[in-house]
């Protein structure tokens, strides 16, 4: 009976996801009629405009949302279990701030040094921004790893992460002070988050990077389950605490770094989705929670992308405004429930 409930739940989430995915292809500033979408997808349609809209914009955007949602949600789950803190998420480790600083340095300093806004460099600027975000995120990740292998106490690590986030944030603010107005504008836009940055050309690399990270996370489920008992018990059961922490931080940080590099810092997906998975399945078994969180993260990102692109908003609504709108109430209700 219990297993059938789980199967039903998973199927429900997948069906919901498929519907959302199709809606993502249909709805936007130009509405694609539902009877045309399959023709377009099967390339039977000769109407070029629809085909271009679907293949060049909506499909890659929906795929990006799908992958980014799954990656961020799993990254959040790993952090919450590792730190045994329901409010942990990758941004707590300062990884998103590291990415922001990297992007800040590229966007804000280019103008200050060369005198021309970064956007005037065209195609190069996109690559530069993704690369800078990745380097920034990975650098913070390595700093955190160095700390985590030296400290056994997870709370101290969270505090170090928050301090690094503040430091990176303040350096970014200082950079802004010396920057061109256009550059600050470009930086603010990046900071709002968007699933439209990946596009067709960068999709293969983005998708492969995310799928590798998600695949690896499945192998962590046994150790994550043991960690739920507390570190001392886990250690007594034969788990190498330090090595395990390093691996979990590495996987979580890697997933966050990739997503942030391509989509900007996206809040609340990593924080809220694991809670929905736990409450939906009333389980703490990571062999179930990892796939469930992944699927729920996909659905959530597709919902947010859909709302941000609703006719009327013209795709200008920042993703972060939408994720916060859905994520914040989830987090509040979790806190209220767990305090009972």
């Amino acid at each position, binding site marked *: 009976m219990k297993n059938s409930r789980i199967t039903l739940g998973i199927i429900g989430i997948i069906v919901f996801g498929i519907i959302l995915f199709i809606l993502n292809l249909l709805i936007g500033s130009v509405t694609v009629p539902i009877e045309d979408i399959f023709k377009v997808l099967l390339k039977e349609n000769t109407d070029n405009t629809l085909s271009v809209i679907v293949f060049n914009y909506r499909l890659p955007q929906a795929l990006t949302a799908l992958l980014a949602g799954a990656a961020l949600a799993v990254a959040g789950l790993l952090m919450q279990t590792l730190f045994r803190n329901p409010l942990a998420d990758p941004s707590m480790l300062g990884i998103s701030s590291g990415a922001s600083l990297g992007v800040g340095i590229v966007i804000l300093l280019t103008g200050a040094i060369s005198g021309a806004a970064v956007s005037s460099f065209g195609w190069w600027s996109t690559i530069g921004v993704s690369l800078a975000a990745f380097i920034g995120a990975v650098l913070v990740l390595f700093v955190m790893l160095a700390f985590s292998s030296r400290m056994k106490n997870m709370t101290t690590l969270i505090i170090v992460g928050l301090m690094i986030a503040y430091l990176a944030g303040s350096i970014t603010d200082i950079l802004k002070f010396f920057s061109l107005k256009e550059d600050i504008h470009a930086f603010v836009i990046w900071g709002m988050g968007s699933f439209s940055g990946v596009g067709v050309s960068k999709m293969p690399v983005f998708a492969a990077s995310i799928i590798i990270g998600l695949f690896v996370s499945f192998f962590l489920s046994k150790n994550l389950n043991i960690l*739920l008992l507390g570190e001392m018990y886990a250690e007594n*059961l034969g*788990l190498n605490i330090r090595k395990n922490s390093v691996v979990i931080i590495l996987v979580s940080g890697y997933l966050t770094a990739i997503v942030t590099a391509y989509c900007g810092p996206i809040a609340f997906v990593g924080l809220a989705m694991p809670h929905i998975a736990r409450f939906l399945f009333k389980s*703490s078994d990571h062999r179930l929670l990892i796939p469930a969180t992944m699927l729920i993260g996909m659905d959530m990102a597709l919902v947010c992308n859909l709302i941000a692109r609703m006719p009327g908003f013209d795709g200008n609504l920042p993703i972060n405004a939408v994720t916060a709108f859905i994520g914040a109430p989830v987090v509040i209700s979790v806190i209220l429930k767990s305090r009972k």
Partner: protein
Amino acid sequence: MEILKATSLSIGYDDKTVVSDINVTLSEGDIIALVGPNGAGKSTLFKTFSTHIMPLGGKIELFGKDLMSYTPKERAKLLGIVLTERPDDMFLKVFDVVAAGRYPYTGMFGKLSEKDEQEIKVSLELVGVNNLIDRVFNTLSDGEKQKVMIAKAIAQNTPIIMLDEPTAFLDYPSKIELFSLLKKLAKEQKKAILFSSHDLELLLRYTDNLWIIAKNQPFAAGTSAELLKNDVIKNYFELKDADNDYLLKEKM
């Protein structure tokens, strides 16, 4: 049969020695109470035995081999612990907690075999809480939680079980019940059991073998009658002569 042996062992943190010159053995079927005031080094000794911290000097042997020569996985099958710390996850079930005891025996994804499932059920039965198997751990009473953690250690199937302050949050009847459970494990399962407590009166009444740790005093081990007779307990716990005589008489 001798399972664990410590020879001129010094324990502590970094360069701060807490207790030195510990010479003890733990054998099959032993049930030993580690007694001493808070802060005297009971937890430090536990952490040293469970290799959470390194000994500062001397050696610890497990089945005649140096404790550190075992891999963490091997040690996990030899020594199980029950701490005062409790898992606090919202959805973690009693079954999951006890199943964690099977972790050293399962494969990469932690899939439980039929034998594992059987061991989990038997362990819960042994401590008398098989009716709680589907409950959320967090919703149990202190006594029930304690029993489930002991079931975890039983499922871990180790020749040694160490329990840190197992009576700490229990009411009196539960304490007595716990002692008889530990005795049963030592007798029927031939396990060596070491537990810590600072409840001297209860220990003298229900256990026979004591290891005593006290600040600025040498480590002492022996039966409670011996330790009462040669005034070790009296000196360590600063008892009055009359109280010591009373306890000794009761023990005889």
